[in-house]
């Protein structure tokens, strides 16, 4: 029974304290609060630069009201980025591979954007449910379809993050097991597999960063529609 491939995704406990707590709190240690010096230390400078870049990218398409969401989006982006990248270290636990956590992040935030839109401009929000140029007999069916697609998109938001990270971690584990098993019998093939492993690791780093960005981008697009 190949239980051990999926063991990396079970949340380990130590004396009843789950490791997920530590994994969620640890990124806070890596981002020191910048002090009010003119020239900071190198870590703070790099992080401030990154933060400004992210905020600028996210806030450009939003109007003035949307800028109130800046802190929420930026902190979400930084948290997801850090958690995903830390999960690539050996023996660490990635909280975003758990579907429960991703859904807990995706659903409330999307619901907040939807409710904001319904509250501020209800007719415009409801009008999004119907694309332009629909033939009249099709309108009821299309409204149902659009509502379903709206809900499914949010489900997909959470599931996408989970699936990408889980698949990546699993692939890394499989290929590394294969390359270790091949070393005594076929060393040349093992070297080829290790090259594949190297490329896969680079891909995983990129995927980790991209997934975080995609998550936040889709939320901000929702906000753009609704605010």
């Amino acid at each position, binding site marked *: 029974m*190949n239980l051990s491939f999926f063991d990396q995704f079970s949340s380990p406990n130590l004396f009843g304290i789950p490791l997920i707590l530590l994994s969620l709190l*640890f990124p806070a240690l890596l981002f*020191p609060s910048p002090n009010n010096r003119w020239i900071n230390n190198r*870590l703070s400078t790099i992080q401030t630069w990154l933060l400004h870049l992210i905020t600028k990218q996210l806030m450009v398409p939003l109007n003035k009201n949307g800028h109130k969401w800046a802190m929420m989006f930026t902190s979400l982006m930084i948290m997801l980025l850090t958690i995903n990248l830390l999960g690539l270290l050996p*023996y660490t636990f990635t909280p975003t591979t758990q579907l429960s956590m991703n859904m807990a992040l995706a659903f409330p935030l999307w619901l907040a954007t939807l409710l904001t839109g319904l509250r501020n401009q209800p007719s415009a929000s409801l009008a999004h449910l119907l694309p332009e140029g629909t033939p009249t007999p099709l309108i009821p069916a299309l409204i149902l379809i659009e509502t379903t697609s709206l809900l499914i998109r949010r489900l997909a938001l959470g599931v996408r993050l989970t699936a990408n990270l889980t698949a990546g971690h699993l692939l890394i584990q499989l290929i590394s097991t294969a390359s270790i098993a091949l070393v005594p019998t076929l060393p040349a093939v093992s070297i080829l597999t290790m090259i594949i492993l190297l490329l896969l690791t680079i891909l995983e780093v990129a995927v980790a960063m991209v997934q975080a960005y995609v998550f936040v981008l889709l939320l901000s697009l929702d906000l753009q529609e609704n605010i």
Partner: protein
Amino acid sequence: MAAPPPRFPPDLLPVSLSGPFPPRPAAATRWRRCRVSAAGRQGDRGPRPAPLPLTALCLCLCPAVPLKDMKLLDVKLGQLPTWLAMRDFTPGGIGGALRRGYERYYNKYINVRKGGLGGISMVLAGYVVISYMWSYSHLKHDRRRKYH
């Protein structure tokens, strides 16, 4: 009466020469041993300080620090249980200790002019080690398994 300008750094100034109000030692600098008598101690890594005038020798007083406030490396082995019992284990005390530890690490390795990769690499390596310890009970089954 105006204090005479110090001819050597203020922390070498003996208590008796510093006037009626000797300076309070800051929290970070406790007078544990005299600089003068420590200069010839073995294992001293710094260069020997220049020989001081006779008036300053052996006039330094080392005021006793209460056991509660002594640093761990200065506590003698026999005093260790007493020291442990006197420490502050309230949530505020533990929070303060964690904050102090964090500040010490931060100011030594990260908040410097030319910090490098080492500061953050040590933190990440420690995180990997802690994660290994935390999931050891899962991992020990993989050691003798034939098919993973």
